[in-house]
């Protein structure tokens, strides 16, 4: 068996890499896949908190690459799914504690046993980024529809090309239909126009995500949540299925509705 190693990256911080990693991972586990999440953000780990597994960490990524423990010992089993594991980052070390070759080795090892290895990449383009992408076959780029996040995503796409990771796919996170409607936010076409890479999904801005993140329960499990269903569609697309892009239906107002009716 040879699993897929996917790195989730963005360049800019705070666009939702960690939340996305947690949700995709949980979504894949929901479908019965064997998944391991690697938190590559050494020194600023978050993925364990989002997954609600903070209190179970004994060993971490640095222990594994320094071989002070076995890989199996550092893997934390999720509390909801038996097929979902987390390899946490070290909080008290720095990004330079891990080298790209070590990450490549680790990914090769985990690939034997898991269907998916998801790597949560730190923000920035320095050592941490280089480590995170070293062992990856594919990349998912997360951006929000604002100028600076798109700019950074563009930079990352260029760097991934230079590292010969083919065809990254894009998730546009925290989209607010109301703002797009008013013309205050870049719409999907504007983002696509600049980045011009395959779109993996569009996730609406949803307060439920903040609640579930704080509670340590990824929103992909909540059937009622808009963001949750967007993540389920993303997971389906990662699995190679056709999933509809959810219409970001906002209330058009009576006049716009009539205008569209007439247009048809």
């Amino acid at each position, binding site marked *: 068996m040879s699993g897929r190693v996917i790195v989730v990256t963005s360049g800019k911080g705070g666009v939702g890499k960690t939340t996305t990693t947690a949700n995709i991972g949980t979504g894949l586990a929901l479908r019965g896949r064997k998944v391991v999440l690697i938190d590559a953000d050494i020194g600023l780990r978050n993925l364990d908190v989002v997954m609600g597994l903070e209190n179970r960490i004994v060993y971490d990524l640095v222990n594994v690459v320094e071989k002070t423990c076995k890989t199996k010992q550092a893997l934390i089993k999720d509390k909801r799914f038996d097929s979902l594991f987390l390899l946490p980052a070290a909080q008290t070390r720095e990004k330079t504690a891990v080298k790209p070759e070590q990450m490549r080795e680790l990914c090769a090892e985990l690939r034997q046993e898991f269907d998916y290895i998801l790597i949560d990449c730190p923000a920035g*383009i320095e050592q941490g980024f280089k480590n995170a992408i070293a062992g990856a076959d594919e990349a998912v780029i997360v951006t929000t529809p604002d100028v600076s996040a798109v700019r950074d995503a563009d930079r990352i796409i*260029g760097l991934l090309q230079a590292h010969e990771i083919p065809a990254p796919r894009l998730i546009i996170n925290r989209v607010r239909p109301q703002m797009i409607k008013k013309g205050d936010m*870049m719409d999907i076409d504007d983002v696509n126009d600049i980045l*011009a890479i395959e779109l993996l999904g569009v996730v609406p801005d949803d307060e439920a995500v903040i609640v579930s993140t704080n509670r340590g329960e990824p929103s992909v499990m909540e059937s009622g949540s808009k963001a949750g269903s967007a993540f389920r569609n993303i997971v389906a697309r990662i699995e190679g299925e056709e999933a509809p892009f959810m219409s970001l239906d906002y209330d058009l107002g009576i006049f716009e509705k009539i205008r569209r009716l007439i247009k048809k």
Partner: protein
Amino acid sequence: MTDAAKSRQDSSSNSPGIVFKGYKSGLTLIIPETGSFETYLDELRNHLDQAKDFFKGAKLAIKTGNRQLCEEERFFLLQIIEEAGMVVQPTVNEPETSKKVKKKGASPQGMLIPSVTVRKTVRSGQRIEYEGNILVMGDVNPGAEIIAAGDIVVLGKLRGTAHAGANGNRQAEIFAFQIKPVQIRIAEVYTRAPEKERLKDKRYFSPEVAMIRDDRIVVEKVTPNYFNQKYKY
């Protein structure tokens, strides 16, 4: 041009012949490209004899257009001028002169500048620098930099920073299917995109060109007869 100087000189010379023009930096002697050089020398001599006091001590630039002077011709010309007590200047910095240079720059010499082709979209943080022309077959995204000693042609959208004529060539031009850059530079002149349109992209898509005109960078659509008007052979 000082009108007084012009009228005084024009009135005394018959139409096809040498012309004196007055500029702020001094006088310019224009010798026609065609016709006998000897005749023009005689004409010049007469001119100078008629108004010795006016010409004495004046700074004079000489323009001969496409006429190439041989050593002998040059010697006689300079002798006449110096006898009249004038100081010869190597060049004058007036618009008419720079037009002449422009014409020369657009001739075969201009085509021989080396070019490089970039077959990809140039993304943020990427920088392409070349001692010649740069052709990009793709977009240039915000945060990317294209720096060329010659011209820049983008077969896509130009939204990053572009610097043409980086070694000081003011005749350099930037072409793209859409020009909406962060910043454009040609030689030492630079310009920014208007602030308003920052968020929304232009929806139209037609070839545009950026160039220096009157010391400012202008961006305009490339009309079907753009090159016809530019190269009037």
